[in-house]
């Protein structure tokens, strides 16, 4: 399957930003649950370096093969292009894993270089595969079941987006909410960390829906109402993700009314990252 360019852009850097937005969006969509997995953090710190190098080689080969079928770059590819794209997908995986691990406090001044390198190397494989396969699942014609415009009234569009955000947030958040990782990560978050986590969730939501080109309707910014404006939709969707995250945590007895407010807030913010990514995916798909 060859992917065609979602939009015609003339400036090379603008086109390049679009391509990387798709890659980052795909990596976040498919890789973020693994970033919230305790064993994934520790595996990289305890695995042998040979195994870590093996992960990189497997990642390079797998991404090259997948790039032949999909990839995040438009147009026809030669094998050299596919290898180049595999390198770029893995670079995206490296950057995202570093950013998310930093925001989540898994990398700090107390971390050893070997531990950081190991954690990043392990996370690169799933994240880069997400970047490469994103177009297979979220091709530019996939959004809104292939439609390039929204057919309902603004109120109906708003309702659809709200429901899609809730469904996506619950779908992704459900698997993470009951795990030990959420309170563990939340316990290590200070105020700056919480703000960074909120920023990451907002950025991810915006990127997947508006910058990646996965959904032509959002991409063209065909404004159908207040909620469909990029800024307001991103903000409102994040609030919905926060509420969904809180509901999931409460449902799984991770938080209760007796817990300190700071602990509740930190846990909700931690879970809001995958919930926001899931909500964005929901709006792209539905």
């Amino acid at each position, binding site marked *: 399957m060859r992917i065609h360019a979602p939009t015609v852009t003339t400036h090379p850097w603008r086109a390049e930003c679009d391509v990387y937005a798709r890659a980052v969006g795909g990596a976040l969509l498919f890789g973020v649950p693994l970033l919230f997995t305790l064993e994934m953090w520790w595996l990289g710190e305890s695995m042998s370096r040979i195994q870590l190098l093996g992960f*990189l080689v497997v990642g390079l080969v797998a991404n090259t093969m997948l790039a032949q079928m999909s990839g995040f770059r438009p147009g026809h590819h030669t094998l050299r292009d596919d290898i180049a794209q595999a390198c770029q997908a893995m670079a995206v995986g490296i950057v995202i894993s570093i950013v998310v691990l930093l925001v989540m406090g898994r990398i700090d001044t107390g971390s050893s270089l070997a531990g950081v390198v190991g954690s990043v190397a392990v996370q690169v494989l799933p994240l880069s595969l997400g970047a490469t396969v994103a177009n297979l699942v979220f091709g530019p014609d996939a959004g809104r079941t292939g439609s390039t415009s929204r057919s309902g009234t603004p109120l109906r569009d708003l309702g659809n987006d709200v429901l899609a955000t809730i469904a996506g947030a619950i779908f992704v958040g459900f698997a993470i909410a009951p795990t030990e990782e959420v309170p563990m990560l939340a316990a290590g978050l200070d105020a700056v960390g919480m703000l960074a986590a909120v920023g990451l969730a907002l950025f991810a939501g915006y990127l997947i829906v508006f910058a990646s080109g996965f959904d032509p309707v959002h991409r063209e910014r065909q404004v159908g109402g207040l909620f469909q404006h990029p800024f307001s939709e991103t903000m409102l969707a994040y609030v919905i993700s926060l509420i969904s995250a809180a509901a999931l945590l409460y449902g799984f007895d991770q938080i209760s009314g007796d817990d300190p407010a700071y602990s509740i807030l930190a846990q909700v913010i931690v879970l809001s990252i995958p919930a926001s990514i899931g909500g964005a995916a929901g709006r792209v798909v539905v």
Partner: protein
Amino acid sequence: MHRDAAQRITLGLSVLLLVGLAALIIGLEVSRGEMPPQFRVIPDYEAATKTEGAWSLPVMITNTGDLAADAVRVDIVRPVAGEDPEIAELEFVFVAGGEQVAGVAVFDERPTAETIEIDVQSSTEP
């Protein structure tokens, strides 16, 4: 496929990142020792604070070995004359080689260098 300047630059940076990560892994492997986990425990007595009748003592634990350790248990002990010692048990699920982790030990009386004993109890191999 013809590549414009933007594509060449981003590809170059991507390859640089990937090669950099691989080089770091190889460098760490070459320079790596096989020293088993060892723990240096440093209590910060000056930072001890009293809250609701109990003294909280911040403790920094560093794995100075090369290998990671699971289930690390460190006991911070305050002997009490004629009674059982007061023991603060600190447990860390995972400490990588070279990693530093922090904990807090809680005591009834103010902990000082003269009144505290440190005992690294156990750890397991991941």
